[in-house]
């Protein structure tokens, strides 16, 4: 970071970064092909139709909160005629692909942060009016995909993220807030609470509050030493980032995953072991895929399953078994085998299981994996190729097209997704129809 030993270090001149973030992404995707959803309150539900995970501006105005379980907001949904959709990830992923393709020619590099957020490297574009340039990016994305978005510009990711929040909140910005502009930065910093700063959790916010630090601006003015004293490296780095010094707080906010889980509720209760095995094996398969995607290996696998805790009258049982993985692995076959052993050891007859999952922890980057004696490199390479091929097939033709035999082919425990829109853009039988009449 530092650029020499000068006594008074100037703010480093770093290339600007922008964060482009789609507005209510899932709802906007649904609206792209279903105009009945336009201008009306609409929400998209999580897997298994559990909770609201995306809300249109109208739904937010009606007080629907992120994560509200559907069964708790049924009255509101009915009273206000809120449109409800199951999540349609095939559609969202395709729209994300299109958004990236629209942006890429207009920036030096794109770093995908999540399905609807992208960091844009604007190095080399500094001599342009970046606000105008980012307006062009927004316009291009909306033209190609119909999806509106906002952009925050800043010297660091933290500032870009804060700028984005400001652009979303205040229509005066017309969708683009440039935090490199002192007036904009001060204005935003004074109005946003510390809790709104990316990476500041509620516990940290409470401790800062005790010190009288309530706004993002006050946090930026905090002494580094004091930030360190508060206990977290993340906070210290965030203070640096808020002052325009890149401290890769981002990597700390979203570290290489410490653990991951694939868990789902069943569409209908499962009462026999083979069906549960099939589901668990599939989750283990998916977890392995995720590991390989991130270049990680796991040292521990936990498999769990339990009955519906909300059905107080029904007999209850919750099982959870942790298996050590030695050597550390990302091999789906080994993960499946471990998960099976876990189920065998903890299975009990006579219960109606409503949810199961596989969790992996103690993750390590695959190249740092401790090697064991007698490792057969050739067998490893062969296995890697097979797994790569599986991932490839599943990526191309849909999840679980190709599955190892034990996974079971009957999928009657599948997720509930009763209000799912068609795969408008990825299946030729489901493309939108246009009236010639």
């Amino acid at each position, binding site marked *: 970071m530092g650029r020499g030993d000068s006594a008074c270090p100037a703010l480093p001149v770093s290339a600007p970064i922008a964060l482009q973030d789609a507005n209510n992404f899932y709802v906007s995707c649904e609206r792209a092909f279903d105009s009945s959803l336009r201008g009306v309150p609409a929400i998209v539900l999580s897997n298994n139709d559990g909770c609201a995970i995306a809300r249109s501006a109208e739904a937010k105005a009606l007080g629907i909160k992120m994560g509200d379980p559907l069964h708790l907001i049924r009255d509101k949904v009915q009273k206000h005629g809120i449109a409800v959709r199951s999540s349609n990830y095939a559609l969202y992923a395709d729209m994300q692909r299109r958004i990236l393709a629209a942006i890429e020619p207009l920036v030096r590099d794109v770093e995908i942060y999540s399905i609807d957020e992208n960091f844009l490297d604007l190095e080399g574009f500094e001599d342009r009016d970046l606000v105008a340039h980012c307006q062009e990016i927004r316009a291009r994305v909306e033209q*190609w995909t119909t999806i509106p978005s906002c952009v925050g510009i800043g010297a660091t990711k933290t500032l870009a993220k804060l700028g984005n929040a400001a652009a979303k909140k205040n229509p005066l910005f017309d969708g683009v807030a440039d935090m490199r502009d002192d007036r904009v930065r001060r204005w935003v910093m004074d109005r946003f609470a510390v809790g709104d700063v990316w990476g500041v959790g509620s516990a940290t916010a409470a401790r800062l509050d005790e010190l009288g630090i309530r706004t993002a601006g006050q946090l930026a003015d905090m002494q580094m030493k004091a930030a360190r004293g508060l206990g977290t490296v993340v906070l210290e780095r965030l203070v640096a980032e808020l002052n325009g010094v890149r401290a890769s707080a981002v990597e700390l906010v979203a570290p290489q995953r410490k653990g991951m889980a694939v868990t789902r509720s069943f569409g209908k209760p499962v009462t026999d072991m083979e069906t549960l095995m099939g589901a668990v094996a599939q989750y283990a398969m998916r977890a392995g895929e995720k590991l390989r995607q991130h270049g990680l290996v796991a040292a521990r696998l936990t498999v769990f399953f339990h009955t519906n805790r909300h059905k107080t009258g029904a007999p209850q049982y919750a099982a959870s078994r942790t298996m050590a993985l030695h050597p550390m692995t990302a091999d789906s076959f080994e993960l499946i085998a471990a998960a099976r052993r876990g189920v065998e050891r903890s299975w009990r007859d006579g219960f109606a299981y409503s949810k199961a999952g596989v969790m992996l922890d103690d993750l390590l980057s695959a190249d740092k994996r401790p090697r064991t004696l007698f490792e057969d490199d050739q067998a490893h390479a062969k296995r890697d190729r097979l797994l790569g091929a599986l991932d490839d097939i599943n990526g191309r033709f849909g999840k679980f097209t190709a599955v190892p035999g034990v996974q079971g082919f009957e999928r009657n425990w599948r997720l509930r997704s009763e209000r799912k829109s068609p795969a408008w853009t990825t299946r030729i039988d489901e493309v939108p129809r246009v009236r*010639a009449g």
Partner: protein
Amino acid sequence: MMAATVREMEWEMIPRDVPILLCRTPAGFPSPAQDDMEEPIDIGAWLIEKPAASYLMRVDGHSMTGAGIHDGDLIVVSRAETPRAGRIVVALVHGDRTLKRLARLDGRLWLVPEAEGYPHIIVDEHVEIWGVVTALARRFL
């Protein structure tokens, strides 16, 4: 300390008589087609020039048969193209997707069908041009 310098070299400076091995040649007869390998024709890539801005849609109805677009045809609709008079477009009329030709008549824009017995629709605030039709695909069997 190790040091290395990279200098630009004139083409003439490269010794000509040193054979340069460009590809591994298996013992045996080399394939005479090796230098002429090409990818098979990808009809999708030809039909859809800008995939990120293009959407496939299925035609439902007969009002564009005069333009050679029939019921059940698959069309490519691009949002990267500018809707101009003369182009075939997909428009939302009161929210319903409809296929028409955009035309300028008496100084105003209209959505015009190309078959007998279908109405013209004037482009007003209830009409949104969604995309421009750039290609058509149809299978006979």
